[in-house]
């Protein structure tokens, strides 16, 4: 078990190296640099060159790459030109914001989708199932930003039940209970909406799994043993139906940690997704490269996590 995990971890190293080179080269190929925005008719080109030389931007790309990687290992991702502070600290703050929103979203998503998926599968073709099907198809068919905007409009502005932007109110002191309450209030609306939006896939997988597994031979075997139907369902049907969901779980977790660009932008929530979009707008490329690298790393980590979860829940996956 641990050997498998270690082996999978070692495989990640070359992937990460490749990813870092790619991210760096792509960032270099983007037109402009952090000083482009400072150019005015009065700017002295010589002064600009001096600034570029001082920042090391005139060195060959591989020198810059190794300097970047070297700094990366010391936790130094450079400075954000837009925010005028170290990228590490900036991303750190945003990651904490996104983490709480992601956790809440995930809990809401599974809390809604697992019961609905089970009901839809167990009572296939019933009116309950049909209602759930309609719900998931609407979610799948309508673009998510439409839901997010309407949710913000209705519950945020018209009904005024929730704060409409930010991650905390400005008038509370950090660390006080009022501060944490305020943070919670700020994740409620984006978290609930995003959680609802991410339920359709899980519901469909679970429904299909329950329907398929109900007709499996091993379920008939369980019934022929005289096992009560309630136990047949929980122990034999449901456990097998949860496998595909477990397979996606790792990626769901890390995917949410990357922050949702839609959710954070629409709710003006200061998280990773919003930082990513704004850094692209301002060509804040030390932030862009750092985030792209982080997102890539999270994807790899998500795959690893999924593999680990699968090997725990499904004995057939375990490699000796």
């Amino acid at each position: 078990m641990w050997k498998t995990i270690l082996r999978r971890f070692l495989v990640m190293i070359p992937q990460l190296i490749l990813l870092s080179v790619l991210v760096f080269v792509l960032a270099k190929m983007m037109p402009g640099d952090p000083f482009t925005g400072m150019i005015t008719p009065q700017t002295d080109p010589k002064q600009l060159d001096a600034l570029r030389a001082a920042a090391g931007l005139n060195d060959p790309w591989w020198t810059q790459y190794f300097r970047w990687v070297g700094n990366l290992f010391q936790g130094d991702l450079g400075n954000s030109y837009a925010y005028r502070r170290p990228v590490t600290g900036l991303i750190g703050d945003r990651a904490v914001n996104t983490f709480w929103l992601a956790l809440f979203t995930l809990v809401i998503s599974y809390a809604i989708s697992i019961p609905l998926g089970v009901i839809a599968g167990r009572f296939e073709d019933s009116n309950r199932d049909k209602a759930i099907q309609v719900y998931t198809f609407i979610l799948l068919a309508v673009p998510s930003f439409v839901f997010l905007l309407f949710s913000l409009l209705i519950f945020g502005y018209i009904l005024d039940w929730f704060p409409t932007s930010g991650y905390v109110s400005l008038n509370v002191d950090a660390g006080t209970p009022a501060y944490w309450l305020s943070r919670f209030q700020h994740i409620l609306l984006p978290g609930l909406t995003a959680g609802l939006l991410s339920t359709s896939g899980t519901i469909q997988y679970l429904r299909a799994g329950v329907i398929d597994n109900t007709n499996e031979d091993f379920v008939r075997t369980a019934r022929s043993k005289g096992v009560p139907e309630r136990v047949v369902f929980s122990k034999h049907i449901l456990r097998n139906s949860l496998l595909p969901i477990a397979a996606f779980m790792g990626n769901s977790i890390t995917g949410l940690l990357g922050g949702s660009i839609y959710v954070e932008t629409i709710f003006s929530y200061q998280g990773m997704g919003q930082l990513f979009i704004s850094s692209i707008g301002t060509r804040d490329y030390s932030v862009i490269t750092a985030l792209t690298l982080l997102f890539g790393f999270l994807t790899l980590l998500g795959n690893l996590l999924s593999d680990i979860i699968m090997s725990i829940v499904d004995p057939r996956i375990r490699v000796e």
Partner: protein
Amino acid sequence: MEKPEDLLLDIQHLHTAFRVGDDFYDAVDDVNLTLRKDEILAIVGESGSGKSTLATSIIGLHNPLNTKVTGDILYNNLNLVGLNEPIYNRIRGNDIGMIFQDPLAALNPLMRIGDQIAETLVYHTKMTKEQRDARVLELLAQVGIPNPQRTFRQYPHELSGGMRQRIVIAIAIACKPPIIIADEPTTALDVTIQAQILDLLRDIQKETHSGIILITHDLGVVAETADRVAVMYAGQMVELGTAQDVFAHPTHPYTRSLLRSMPQADADDDELHVIQGVVPSLKNMQMTGCRFAERIPWVPETAHEATPTMHEVGPDHFVQCTCYKTFHFQDEDATQSEG
């Protein structure tokens, strides 16, 4: 003829109907059958003859939404037809053990072998965990698993098909049920393993004195294993008798055709005999008259009964319809040119 104390199961006028569209069609049509202590009763017939449906009706595993079971299945003065689920669950596994056709699919892939066998004991005995584990190890040894301790902790995918079928048998016999239903237990296995599994079934039967219903379409299996044989065709029982009688004096045209279609290594002619036509589907089943008539068209209509009944042709030997009296095989050349 039948001592009541030997009677395990008494099936009377059993009908099992499946819903097709809005209508119900009998897949098992008015079957009367008894299972006695200490015997292996084989039910044979082609695919679609209703033999598996009959077995599933006995253990009550049909989906009530699209299946209607009527008639009586008497076990210990208890009618299993229409029995409520909690009581039925006490009988399933405890009084009736079931062995399924496909051992590769019959075990839960996520559960350890030991737990799957022990599950039966959980719901039917008051054994402690230790007692259950001990019983499971005993069962694994009984069904011929070479290393019970190891297999106890293994998962189904780590075992071969033959081994898995032994596990399925261990599950079925865990509570020493007086009735064991084996639904084509050897169909999914290769021939050498088939013989081993049949030997195992026979040994278990001798040890526990249970009554076994062996469902199969393999006449070789029947000849080797069964004490009595029931031949089913299109949902009805057409012949019932001791294995000796049925094999030595097959009487119903269908039984005779079946036996003749068995390839014989030592036969004089090297012809492979077939029965023309197929078992009619549920929807196309003729509801009156002899159902086999359409596959023996050369037999005059007057030979059949309008409403076929069972006729006793010997001690403990029954045949449906009167067509057996005048039945003869058609000239082989004529059959060939027809086909």
